[in-house]
């Protein structure tokens, strides 16, 4: 790899046709120096479906009728699609009925656009010192970024989205001077710092483990301390994570203060008393999980073995004597030879069947878990109709919240369990237990029996 690197670095200078700066947002410009990466980056417009993923934006509410019941009362019951390539992120966000039919904040823009510069400009406007030509990593640069971030989060979506014009672009992941990977999303930088301060073991993020052993007086700084291999996942962890909008300022926040696991995020939300909405049928205060790929990957054997998102979703392609990272980020199942066979010496067919075995198991449990949640929602709805009060129902509503959170955590995660097969199954097993226990508790309340104590594992 070093040799390759040296070669390509040599190339890089040789081919450097134009200079790019912190102010060069348009990927076309960068593409003049790196046409191969740019060409593949453009190919994220492709649409091709896989069994559980792929890039065709079909309506999930149609393919999975349970979802309407589960998200009743929330924007996700209106329009919820399979996600597709990066090229669409800006337009898909602008066009979703979740935005056109509901009011959304500027916070949404955090992950759907190239906004490094937009944040900094806004920051300067709103009084952060310095100029936007100053280095990104400088004290001023960072202050501008975070100031603009905070300001944009609380704007109206319609206004905020006018400040950006490109989907995620080179500048969001690369330093324009050195082309080194970097993270630029303030929500991620805050989140990973909070994670570093927690005590959740993260063997797959060795630089955090190292930081923890240090004096901890300064915040963990991913752009300085993370290894290259870690950066190959953190670049994606910028956006492919569970989040919520904190408080009135609608600040994009990753719930990592206790760790990355499903129950650790839940604990955070419970502690701060957050819920996404009140369920229209059951009255429960519930949560919506969103694309926790980084979190789920973190629990899997690949992360543990040092395999990064980019290894599978941006594998090297050889072009003549050089290898470049395929910037057509997509389902690895559409690219098995490069995405998997460098590490796994089985045939493509065999590799797909292994994935299918994992995804089928997950799907089966997921169906059972959704069914259990829907049954509980139905039972609560009926109980309300029968005259039970929210106060009486609260313990059971809490069980719905916990069950639904787990079910959705796996469902919203986009690999159908592949990123961490056993963890996904464990989460769903717990979801089923909680939802079914909720029904039991309700029936006991209704028939005047003493409700059972939920078991330790299902508290």
């Amino acid at each position, binding site marked *: 790899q070093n*040799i390759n690197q040296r070669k390509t670095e040599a190339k890089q200078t040789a081919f450097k046709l134009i200079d790019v700066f912190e102010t060069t947002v348009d990927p076309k410009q960068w593409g003049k120096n790196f046409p191969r990466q740019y060409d593949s980056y453009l190919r994220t417009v492709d649409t091709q479906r896989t069994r559980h993923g792929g890039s065709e934006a079909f309506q999930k509410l149609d393919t999975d009728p349970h979802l309407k019941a589960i998200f009743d009362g929330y924007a996700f019951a209106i329009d919820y699609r399979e996600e597709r390539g990066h090229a669409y992120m800006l337009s898909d966000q602008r066009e979703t009925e979740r935005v056109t039919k509901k009011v959304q904040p500027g916070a949404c823009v955090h992950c759907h656009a190239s906004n490094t510069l937009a944040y900094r400009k806004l920051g300067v406007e709103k009084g952060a010192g310095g100029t936007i030509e100053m280095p990104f990593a400088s004290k001023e640069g960072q202050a501008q970024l975070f100031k603009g971030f905070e300001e944009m989060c609380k704007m109206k979506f319609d206004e905020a989205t006018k400040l950006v014009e490109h989907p995620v672009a080179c500048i969001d992941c690369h330093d324009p001077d050195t082309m080194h990977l970097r993270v630029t999303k303030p929500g991620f930088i805050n989140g990973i710092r909070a994670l570093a301060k927690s005590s959740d073991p993260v063997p797959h993020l060795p630089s955090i483990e190292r930081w923890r052993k240090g004096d901890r007086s300064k915040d963990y700084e991913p752009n300085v301390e993370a290894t290259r291999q870690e950066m190959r996942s953190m670049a994606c962890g910028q956006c492919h994570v569970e989040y919520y909008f904190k408080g009135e300022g609608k600040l994009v926040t990753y719930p990592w203060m206790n760790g990355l696991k499903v129950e650790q995020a839940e604990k955070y939300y419970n502690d701060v008393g957050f819920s996404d909405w009140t369920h229209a049928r059951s009255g429960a205060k519930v949560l919506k999980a969103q694309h926790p790929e980084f979190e789920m990957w973190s629990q899997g054997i690949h992360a543990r073995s040092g*395999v990064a998102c980019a290894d599978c979703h941006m594998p090297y392609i050889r072009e003549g*004597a050089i290898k470049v990272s395929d910037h057509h980020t997509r389902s690895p199942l559409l690219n098995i030879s*490069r995405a998997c*066979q*460098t590490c796994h*010496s089985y045939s493509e067919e065999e590799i797909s069947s292994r994935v299918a075995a994992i995804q089928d198991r997950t799907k089966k449990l997921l169906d059972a878990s959704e069914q259990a949640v829907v049954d509980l929602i139905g039972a609560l709805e009926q109980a309300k109709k029968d005259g039970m009060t929210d106060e009486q129902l609260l313990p059971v509503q809490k069980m719905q919240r916990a069950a639904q959170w787990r079910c959705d955590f796996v469902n919203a995660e986009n690999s159908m369990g592949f990123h961490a097969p056993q963890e996904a199954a464990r989460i769903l097993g717990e979801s089923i237990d909680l939802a079914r226990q909720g029904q039991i508790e309700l029936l006991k309340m209704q028939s005047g029996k003493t409700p059972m104590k939920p078991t330790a594992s299902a508290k």
Partner: protein
Amino acid sequence: MRRYAGITTAGLALAALVGICIGSALYTFDFAEGTSYLSNDPKACVNCHIMRDQYDGWQKASHHANATCNDCHVPQDLVGKYYTKAEHGWRHSKGFTLQNFHEPIRITPESLAIVNNNCVRCHESLTSEITSHADPVRGLVNCTQCHSRVGHGPRN
């Protein structure tokens, strides 16, 4: 750059030679001897940039000091050796010239059998007990089932 250009020339020259061989429909040892492909120097393999990963891996792996490419990848009896070299030389050059091979490169079952025989060749006495009870029908368990890293280190 210079090295890169050099390699390409070598590759083309080799391909051209192979082309001539198809013309005459004959693999001769003359052709064989005439190309660097047949030397025991690992550099001969890595002449082809496509072998770069394996070369890099080999340099870091446990056998760097003990075995070169040909010690593992070529049968050690004379006929087999040159037959294999000719056959590989042909296939690899063709692949390289046409750029139509599967990537990542996969060892063929035939080549893997050659490798395994070479493991046993060097480690005969150590493994005599486990190889001696090999079932003539069922054969050996491939050494590389467990020791796949000795040649090139871990895949990842």
